[in-house]
């Protein structure tokens, strides 16, 4: 059958592409922390059910279309009148009901799970990081350490991180797929997220919610390191980085794409965008015209990375 063959060809093509490009598994299937692992398990669980449904429908479809196709020898076959069938229709009403219930239970459990500190890490004091998204960069403030970074974030591995997230203007979505799911950041509002990296490593984080010209460059790097390395890094920043001034902070908030920056002190001393007052820093005129005219160069994290590899 032509249809089946073309679909098979298509499938083989995809598998081939998959084999060629992805020697490593897709990010979502390669979780690096308990929260992401929880989600991956749920996703795989659902994919199994969905595969069963797809296979059933495809087989039924193939068999019916093949068996009841018009042929030269059945031209005078007159199909019967069929009202329907209560038994059959109840069956294919009940099967999806059962599947929906089977999917609902783990979904509801996981929804609650990911709102809290992951299991096994409850006894540790979470590290608090304030996330502030702006056009088009990520600002990370460590209130306990009294330091602030832009477009990258160092965290201790195996310790829960409590993200308190807000935005200086447009709406963004904070997502580190290797570590867990995403959540929006909004001005005048605080959203929260708990993540843990249980391995040391470097992960890419992204904004997934479109917010203007610099959106594609709005990614950042997360470095999960041992507690010792993390403390050393904090110490080093405290000793070497410049003090953050309000003037400098206003410059960071201007709509630009910038590289990584590191400061002593946090902007929380002047403003927490979660509690209003962001309009003070907004400047609609800065959004007139095009980005490239305002932009010396784009060096987002992934760009840097590709340069490294080359």
């Amino acid at each position, binding site marked *: 059958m032509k249809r089946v063959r073309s679909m098979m060809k*298509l499938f083989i*093509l*995809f598998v081939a*592409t998959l084999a060629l*490009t992805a020697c490593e598994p*897709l990010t*979502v299937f390669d979780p690096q922390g308990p929260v992401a692992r929880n*989600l991956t398990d*749920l*996703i795989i669980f*659902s994919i199994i059910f*969905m595969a069963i449904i*797809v296979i059933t*429908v495809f087989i039924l*479809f193939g068999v*019916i*279309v093949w068996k*009841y*196709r*018009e042929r030269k020898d059945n031209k005078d076959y007159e*199909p019967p009148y*069929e009202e329907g069938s209560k038994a*059959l*229709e109840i069956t*294919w009403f009940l099967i*999806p009901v059962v599947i*929906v219930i089977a999917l*609902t239970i783990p*979904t*509801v459990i996981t*929804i609650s*799970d990911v709102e809290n500190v992951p299991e096994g890490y409850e006894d540790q004091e979470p590290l608090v990081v304030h996330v502030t998204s702006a*056009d088009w960069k990520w600002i990370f403030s460590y209130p306990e350490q009294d330091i602030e970074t832009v477009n990258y974030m160092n965290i201790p591995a195996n310790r829960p991180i409590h993200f308190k997230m807000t935005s200086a203007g447009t*709406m963004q979505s904070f*997502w580190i797929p290797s570590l*867990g*799911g*995403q*959540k*929006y950041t*909004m001005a005048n*509002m605080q959203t929260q997220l708990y993540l843990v990296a249980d391995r040391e490593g470097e992960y890419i984080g*992204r*904004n*997934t*919610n*479109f*917010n*203007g010209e*610099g*959106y*594609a460059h709005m990614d950042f790097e997360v470095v999960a390191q041992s507690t010792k390395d993390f403390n050393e890094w904090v110490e080093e920043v405290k000793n070497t980085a410049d003090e953050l001034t309000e003037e400098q902070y206003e410059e960071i908030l201007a709509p630009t794409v910038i590289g990584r920056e590191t400061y002593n002190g946090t902007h929380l001393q002047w403003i927490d965008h979660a509690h209003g007052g*962001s*309009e003070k820093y*907004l400047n*609609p005129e800065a959004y007139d015209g*095009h980005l*490239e005219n305002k932009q010396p160069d784009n060096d987002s994290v*992934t*760009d840097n990375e590709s340069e490294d590899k080359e």
Partner: protein
Amino acid sequence: MKLDEFFVTGDPLILGSQIAIGLTMVGLVVLITYLKKWKWLWNEWFTTVDHKKIGIMYIIAGVLMFFRGGVDGLMMKAQTSRPNMEFLDAQHYDEVFTTHGVVMILFMAMPMLIGIINVVMPLQIGARDVAFPKLNALSFWTFFVGAMLFNISFVIGGSPDAGWTSYFPLAGKEFSPDVGNNYYAIALQIAGIGTLASGINFIVTILKMRAPGMKLLKMPMFTWTTLVTSVLIVAAFPILTVALALMTLDRIFGAHFFTVAAGGDPMLWLNLFWLWGHPEVYIVVLPAFGMFSEVIATFSRKNLFGYVTMVVSIVAIAFLSMLVWVHHFYTMGNSAAVNSVFSITTMMIAIPTGVKIFNWLFTMRKGRIQFSNAMLWALAFIPCFTIGGVTGVMLAMAAADYQYHNTMFLVAHFHYVLIPGVVFAVFAGLYYWWPKMFGFKLNEKIGKWHFWLFVIGFNLTFMPMFFVGLDGMSRRMYTYSESTGWGAWLGVSAVGGLILAAGFAALVYNIYWSFRYASRDIGGDPWDARTLEWATASPVQEYNFAVIPEVTDHDEFWKMKKEGRNTLKKEDVKDIHMPSNSGIPIIFSVAIGIVGFFLVFEWNTLAAIFSVGIIAGLIANSFDYDDGYHIPAKKVWETERKWRGDL
């Protein structure tokens, strides 16, 4: 405002389109003048109130917009086909994906479906027109003016660039000071008026104008889906009207409903938008389900399996569709309880939809399946839509959605729902009902090219997107670096886009070829079909039915043929009362368009002055006492004799 700000300048692509648009318009005007067709256009088309002609105009507009939205799509595919491509810059890409979304949903899917509904639904219920023919013309012209206003943004003033969802605060004056998003607010508002009026018109038509004997549960399935969709339109579109009105107040009159400053609440926009936006998905998908039901029954030569269950399913889908809008923003920080409730309501939609899929499959069982072009589209719909459906269930699971939200996985999913669900249906509907509209069939052989290129291209374009999404690529990214490893996937996807475009070109060629060469001698019922629209001539006579039929079954025409009731007696033919053409709808809509244009540029005084035109239109309409005219019985009899052969 300076002239160089008024016209978009500086980009060779846009300059090219400006010249192309200018030349096309001059060319059209010259051509029509040369052929002396202005009077014909005005009398036969621009002022018509005939539901069939209005339907055809909707479909023509839909095909044009399909082309525009498709070119947008191809430009996006070209830009992302390789890492670090420099075909479009960020701003241009943002405009292109915004207009692609708006055009495809509101100016392609909607007019295609409303167009086919317009042509077919009154025929299916044995009516001579819709309930309010002049309002129907107004619906079309407001839609058309809205669509045109939206499209000129490309060359005058700049296109909207905040996504088809136009999320605040980004879409507000604080972050998007240009006029682009004014176009969004005003053009959608104008088009929305037309859609709302259509919804009301169709509900009244179906409830009040069915042929005698056609009880609700004897209506053809396409008419049922039209009724349910129309109810959804009336329920959902006012929400869009309000949301767009608030947006207009924010952007043009300095209000603060959705702003960051002064206590505005952007989350309110998201809620209002999706309270309309989710039902909108079902507004476009339900009539498509109706078309598939008709096509599958006709070409399996069997009645629809489980008719009552199908009706209950569409009503259930429509009801649930109003209760799921939060699933578009699970990640907005809702409580676990809220997300759980909306996960469950969303997954519940899969139940009636699954029932429908199995009922379609069992309609074909024990049938005799003819692989006509219309049927091929209905067949391809089932596996492709199933993939869209199951990935929809995956997205419905709120916790898992934290990993899919706003990624290419989502983009792949909704294209797998909307292309099989709407575009395949529109193609099936066009091939199926084309003879009713134009009196000839589309060519089956060229149609096969159209079918295979389009279906293969579609799968090749959108299947890789599932995988890049799972690999962490978010939607709407105009560029990405090589190290992401997405290049191969998106390269395949871009090739798929080209094949898809070739499929569309095959359709256009098919229309051209068939228009020139196809046989005109096909009779009223070329497919040996089942419902009442096939009891008329091809193309349909202006009065539809010489005598309104008595209905006994939901496959009434099939039954008529079996029982030999498909004949006409001369003494039954009476004078037929018809509505007169009217120029008011088009003039009135153009006035609205002019006011809208001034509002876009915030020239409020000019807008106020030209609003007089709108008021004048309303007054003129109130004093229109034209009561229509009668087609004498003799003339009706002549027409009937001609197409039925000797009576």
